[in-house]
């Protein structure tokens, strides 16, 4: 019985895999979405403040607001589909969503499977700490204690930049590194602008950004070849960047206007 069941699930799995891989990559058009009247937009719900589940158990966050704005611009209803980090691209290429506003970092590797819009948001990694700690560039980190989450982008970045005499303390996660900063166990931490936004709310004016380490921009993703939809999205992004609506959403969720490097990379 058990064997039959596993044989069945194996067959089902195989059928599903074939189904997925043989589904033609359908280019998506704006017209088609408008005819249907609903845009199916994939987003993360486990990546605050970009994608979360709110008190009503509905997808919410920065990405949700951008997705809603885009659907509104197209004149259609929005259907937010929760996806996860590993399955977001499969969801898109198997036609289960029309596009992704899922904090998808623009990388060369991913650009082989999906087409990216211009950046709509970015994550910046910086060194951040007590105002009276005087650090303006990596060399100043000598003798300074820096907290990072082990093996994170900031860990790799700081390990590379920091001089010999810097003390890098590696914690298990961002929360512990932040706790170490708050309790004075470390002088500065390496962290993303999302963490900084949270810290600014918890302890306004106590810390400031020392210098930036790296930045990663995120784009809206569509199926390859959907150039008409992509043009529409890029035009939309340009308009909401220009009229400040994207700034407003960024201010709402990240407590700061859209970072310059996102705005400037539009060419």
């Amino acid at each position, binding site marked *: 019985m058990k064997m039959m069941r596993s044989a069945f699930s194996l067959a089902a799995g195989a059928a599903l895999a074939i189904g997925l891989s043989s589904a033609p990559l359908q280019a998506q058009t704006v017209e088609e979405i408008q005819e249907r009247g609903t845009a199916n937009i994939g987003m993360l719900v486990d990546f605050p403040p970009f994608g979360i589940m709110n008190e009503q158990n509905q997808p919410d966050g920065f990405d949700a607001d951008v997705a809603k704005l885009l659907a509104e611009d197209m004149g259609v209803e929005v259907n937010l589909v929760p996806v996860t980090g590993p399955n977001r691209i499969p969801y898109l290429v198997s036609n289960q969503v029309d596009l992704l506003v899922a904090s998808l970092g623009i990388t060369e590797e991913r650009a082989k499977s999906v087409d990216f819009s211009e950046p709509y948001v970015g994550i910046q990694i910086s060194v951040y700490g007590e105002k009276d700690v005087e650090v303006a560039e990596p060399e100043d980190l000598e003798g300074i204690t820096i907290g990072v989450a082990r093996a994170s982008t900031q860990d790799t970045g700081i390990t590379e930049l920091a001089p010999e005499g810097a003390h890098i*303390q*590696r914690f*298990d996660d961002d929360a*512990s590194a932040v706790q*170490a900063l708050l*309790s*004075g*166990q470390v002088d500065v931490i390496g962290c993303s602008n999302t963490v900084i936004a949270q810290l600014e709310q918890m302890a306004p004016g106590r810390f400031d950004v020392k210098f930036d380490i790296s930045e990663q921009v995120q784009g809206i993703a569509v199926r390859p070849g959907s150039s008409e939809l992509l043009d529409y999205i890029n035009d939309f992004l340009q308009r909401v960047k220009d009229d400040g609506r994207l700034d407003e959403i960024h201010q709402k969720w990240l407590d700061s206007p859209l970072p310059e490097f996102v705005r400037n990379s539009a060419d």
Partner: protein
Amino acid sequence: MGYTFRFEPVFERFDQLLEGAWLTIQLSGSAMLVGLLVSILFALLKTSGPRPLAWLVNAYVELIRNTPFLVQIFFIFFGLPALGMRLTPNSAALLALIINFGAYGTEIIRAGIESIAKGQIEAGFALGLKRLQIFRYIILKPAMRAIYPALTSQFIYLMLTSSVVSAISADDLTAIGNNIQSATFAAFEVYLVITLIYLFLSIGFSSLFKLVERVAFNYPLSR
């Protein structure tokens, strides 16, 4: 099995692992010694100290034995700076290990002390021994002999518990293992190697304890 083992990246960093293992030995070794002294003192207070002190020791034992070690170490590392005590990760780890072991050790040694027959102590008084002599030779030593196996297994457990200190960024064996794992993605290989190192350390400590037992309790049992 479709998994290809890649041990080279782990062995390339073996010197780092040895450094981590050395810190683990130092941390657990010092915590054992200091923790043992704390345990003896507290066990004495609990069995024959003044009421308020015995009560305090009891509260300490109950508090530590009924809360997770991870929480205790977070409390010491992140909480003490609020009281103006900023410890380095390694000293916070050592302090946490001593405090944690002290609670378990106190109970073990108390059990040993209470196992000593009253007549044995009275025999000491009858022979005209001083109080300290009675405590040292008639109570503590036989008590230690009785609970030695329990004490040493608690020592080993202390050494293994020290793997948690990587949470406050102390660079013990587990922390180094995590660093290597996240740099090379050879997670299974790294954990296999550090498991073997922990096993080796445990066996090493056990042999040392056996040796101590042979030297310290080198007299026949009376029964």
